[in-house]
């Protein structure tokens, strides 16, 4: 299933995409229940399929089964959906916590003169920073003039996970989305002495609209294997990142298992996979980069400027697009 959060008349709704159309899941489930003779169709549907994604995920197997039943129903009936292009998409979920991985692709480590650490990076990004698909991302000089892009796989957690083994980790995954870990590089990378740099994951990562998510969640039943998906970023049409999930150092099960050793991962957590090489940081000699020539067609380029369009693509998921601009 492809699940979206979208807005109609200022109200947020949970939808499913079928053949390019968006259907209100809660309303469609009510229609199905009514057809089955359920006298409390609307009430039951409102509980079983809540209108926020996190509440829906928290509903677990029963909520998911109801959604699947609804999809089967929609596939054989002729209910009218809304054309996907006419819908105002919101971030598919407001994650309850965003855990970010990093140092997770060799080409990104190489271009920033880093060696592979013994464990994957672990930092947090404020849920206050979440931006919707197509929402304008702020270019705010008081934050930075070095705005950078990072395409990442967003892993959505389905149920509480604590100290889970790698081999069980996928049982705790609800689905996948695209995450843009926008970074403020001169806030994030601070020279220490002549040869070293401090990385600051607070200032460098958490600010308004610095975390676009979307455009939807593809549930695990539709996308079971993410170990071989192409990831691509273009900035105003220029190819800047071009890699594949098969090159990831710590894969999805490893990430879920690792972070669950620290805290209970809860439904609606988003874990970002870490990004491959190609962000502007990789060309920023001032901040310690080694801009070696790439062989994958990726052009070395500078930081984003106002009006640049970020287009992040992950195979079998979709495209997350946002423009960066001065907002005031």
């Amino acid at each position, binding site marked *: 299933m492809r699940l979206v959060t979208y807005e109609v008349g200022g109200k947020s709704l949970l939808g499913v995409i079928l053949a390019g159309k968006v259907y209100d899941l809660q309303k469609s489930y009510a229609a199905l229940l009514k057809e089955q003779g359920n006298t409390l169709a609307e009430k039951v549907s409102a509980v079983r399929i809540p209108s926020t994604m996190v509440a829906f995920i928290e509903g677990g197997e029963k909520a998911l089964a109801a959604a699947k039943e609804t999809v089967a129903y929609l596939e054989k009936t002729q209910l009218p959906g809304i054309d996907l292009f006419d819908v105002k998409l919101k971030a598919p979920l407001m994650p309850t916590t965003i855990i970010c991985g990093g140092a997770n692709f060799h080409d990104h480590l190489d271009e920033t003169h880093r060696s592979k*650490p013994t464990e994957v990076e672990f930092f947090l990004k404020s849920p206050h920073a979440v931006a919707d698909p197509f929402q304008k991302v702020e270019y705010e000089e008081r934050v930075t003039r070095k705005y950078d892009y990072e395409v990442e796989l967003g892993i959505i957690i389905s149920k509480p996970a604590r100290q889970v083994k790698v081999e069980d980790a996928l049982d705790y995954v609800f689905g996948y989305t695209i995450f843009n870990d926008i970074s403020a590089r001169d806030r994030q990378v601070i020279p220490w002495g002549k040869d070293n740099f401090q990385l600051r994951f607070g200032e460098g990562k958490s600010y308004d609209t610095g975390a676009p998510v979307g455009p939807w969640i593809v549930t695990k039943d539709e996308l079971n294997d993410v170990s071989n998906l192409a990831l691509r970023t273009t900035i105003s049409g220029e190819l800047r990142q071009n890699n594949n999930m098969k090159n990831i150092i710590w894969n999805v099960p490893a990430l879920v298992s690792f972070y669950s050793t620290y*805290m209970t991962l809860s439904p609606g957590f988003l874990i970002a996979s870490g990004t491959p090489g190609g962000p502007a940081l990789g060309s920023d000699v001032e901040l310690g980069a080694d801009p070696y020539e790439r062989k994958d067609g990726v052009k070395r380029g500078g930081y984003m400027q106002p009006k640049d369009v970020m287009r992040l693509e992950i195979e079998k998921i979709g495209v997350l697009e946002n423009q960066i601009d001065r907002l005031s």
Partner: protein
Amino acid sequence: MKLVTFKFNGQLKIGAVLQDNYVLDLQRAYALYLAKEEQDLQADGMAQALIPGDMVEFLRGGQLAQEAAQKAYDYAKEQEHSLLGINEEWLFYSLEDVKLLAPLQPLTVIGAGPGLEEPNNQQMHSYIEFYLKSEHTVVGPGAPILYLPEQAQNFDCTVELGVIIGKPGRHIPEDKVMDHIYGFTVAHNVYCEKLQVGWEGTMFHVRYSEGTSFDNACPTGPWIVTKDEVGDPDNLNMLLYVNGKVRDKLNSKDLLRGVKEFVSYCSTFITLEPGLLILSGSSNGPVLGKDADGRPVIKDLRKNPAYLKPGDVVRSVIENVGELENPVVEWKGGK
């Protein structure tokens, strides 16, 4: 006013503490006030709209909601505790009978980076930072601080002032910050041995997530005190006791970055808004310094630090704010 979040019959409620031993259900008191004093025939619905059970939602209601809470409080505080509400429901609870939860379940927790080994070295000030602590670490008064044997060396906590935002705003100068603060709470910022410098070749970072974001690592409470009762947050005495003995004796004026200054700084990045919890940091916590080779390292400068272990009880008092107590318990699964 001292505002608490408590649970009764499975329902979340916002209360105001009276005489330090009673809790007034603010929503139900407001409904009674509206019905009796303003002859509002829709008192019940209005009270539910203005004073919901969730603190973040309540704060989002802004001045309108805050004034409603004040009216309810002023109306009920002098009444007999046997007084019932418009549906004959209880208005007053004995503080002992209710379970206090974290006064606010934040959407984002911002922590102040560590202090500096040489606070007067201006060059080092460019390495001061803020960090995120997972929102899921927040628990309430009395909740256990969970001790995990495998990560429990240097297991410790600082007492910190928790800042609760009331009014949204971005790029707020220090002298306007108080307009955006709703109140304050006491926080235990628990950390473990993983709070260290980690290296990736030429780059290093302080491992805040590993060191400070684990289950129950941020007890807060017991209440939010509105700012009018607190005075200047940059001059508050703070005491931390372990098993009844004073461990830290601090004043917020000694923080590397003042509370107002730090909140102003955070607003450069994130819009201040209800749901944000900002922790002040501590002047007696881990610091960033240099080792013999000039490389960055996290240090503990305290003489004879006594780390926390299961069975300890941590209690903190912040002047004009309150007292928070949490036991240290060995983790045996679950939260």
